[in-house]
């Protein structure tokens, strides 16, 4: 059951500075971006929070631009924004591929990349892309701004280093050398939560990230090293099978996920061969 509205409050700041002050002085507050995760939780009464902070008026957080050679994506950029952005299409096509496979159009118009990151589901489709791209997250509080490598953001299942007084404001991506690759395996293209999702970059040292096979999105350093060292793909698949420990759950089994992951690795390698 949805909690009674009378118990819920919403703050609607007009600027980032005010939003950050409210988080500091009036928190804990739950930020709202596109609400495609939060409203599901509210509608089903699984979210206990009652004090919310609306980010939707903070227009600068929706910008996508280039700064000092880096691609900077505002946390409020929606999947539709990513798909339509020439900059993202040119510099990070694997993110466009991921965005196209999120939900249906209704979810793509509302869901944000920042919400995907902070929600932190291990099945989040943008997450392996940010991991393989070695993205940096820009976190801001009223007192300071700090930068955290995406690969150091999560500390466990849906847990991260983001503090309650901080917002994710942007995601920065340095130029990605090499061929980019993304594949999502679910039950059907639209609306399906990923069973296994892989993003990878083929460069001297390949960068490979997997979602839905562990409590958080993971990089595969040993598999990457094996491929960089010239291992045959079959050997690299063997390393991958040692490197991840997927689980059985409602959506799939561990054995199936492992099989899919090793197949995806071979697909990536074949698709990106020169």
């Amino acid at each position, binding site marked *: 059951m949805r909690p009674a*509205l009378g118990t819920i*409050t919403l703050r609607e700041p007009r600027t980032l500075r005010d939003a950050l002050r409210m988080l500091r002085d009036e928190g804990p507050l739950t930020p709202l971006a596109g609400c495609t995760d939060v409203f599901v939780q509210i509608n*089903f009464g699984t979210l206990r929070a009652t004090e919310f902070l609306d980010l939707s008026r903070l227009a600068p957080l929706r910008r996508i631009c280039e700064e000092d050679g880096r691609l900077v994506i505002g946390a409020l950029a929606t999947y539709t924004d990513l798909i*339509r952005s020439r900059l993202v299409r040119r510099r990070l096509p694997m993110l466009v591929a991921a965005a196209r496979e999120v939900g249906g159009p209704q979810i793509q118009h509302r869901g944000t990349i920042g919400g995907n990151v902070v929600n932190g589901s291990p099945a989040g489709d943008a997450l392996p892309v940010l991991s393989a791209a070695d993205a940096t997250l820009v976190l801001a509080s009223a007192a300071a701004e700090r930068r955290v490598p995406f690969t150091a953001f999560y500390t466990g299942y849906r847990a991260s280093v983001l503090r309650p007084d901080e917002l994710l404001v942007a995601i920065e991506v340095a130029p990605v050398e090499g061929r980019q690759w993304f594949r999502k395996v679910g039950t059907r*293209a639209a*609306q399906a939560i990923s069973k296994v999702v892989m993003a990878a970059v083929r460069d001297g040292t390949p960068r490979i990230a997997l979602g839905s096979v562990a409590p958080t999105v993971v990089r595969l350093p040993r598999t990457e090293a094996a491929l960089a060292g010239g291992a045959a793909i079959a050997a690299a698949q063997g390393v991958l099978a040692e490197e991840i420990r997927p689980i059985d759950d409602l959506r799939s089994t561990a054995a199936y996920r492992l099989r899919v992951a090793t197949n995806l690795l071979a697909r990536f390698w074949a698709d990106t061969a020169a």
Partner: protein
Amino acid sequence: MNTPRSGGGARTVAAGPVAFTLNGHAVSVDAHPMARLLDVLREDLGLTGTKEGCGEGECGACTVLLDGAPVCSCLVPLAHARGREVRTIESLGGDHALQRAFVAEGGAQCGACTPGMIMAALALPEHPTRERIRQGLAGNLCRCTGYEAIYRAVERAASETVATPGASAAAEERKP
């Protein structure tokens, strides 16, 4: 139904009624900013054409256009409609090309999904391919028709010559 909110003054959007444009008309509703747009449309504004299926963004029955883009109104807080344009199935009036085509092709059986389907279809470009229609309706579930009749209905409506009111939403979608 309004709850007291702190941090008032110019720092935040003023409390009180939420004003937006609904089907071309200015409206103002005195409802909670965290109320679901779906409930406000159906209960506060009496527009019951928009349906609730799942309440979790999966089925698309509650689809409305927000500034021309299809969204699930069960996942939209009223606050996010403030100052924006909301369009519901009622704006079509009953004799829209899409409505006639859904009838003609048997695209509506129980009808639960139909308003949402039509709102999602409105956002399609003017002469969509079958693939584009599939994509555009991928967020809408139908338990009755098996989709074929729905796709045919959208194609039939698109083949009717004069520009439909959907064209403006489609133009919106094509913006860079």
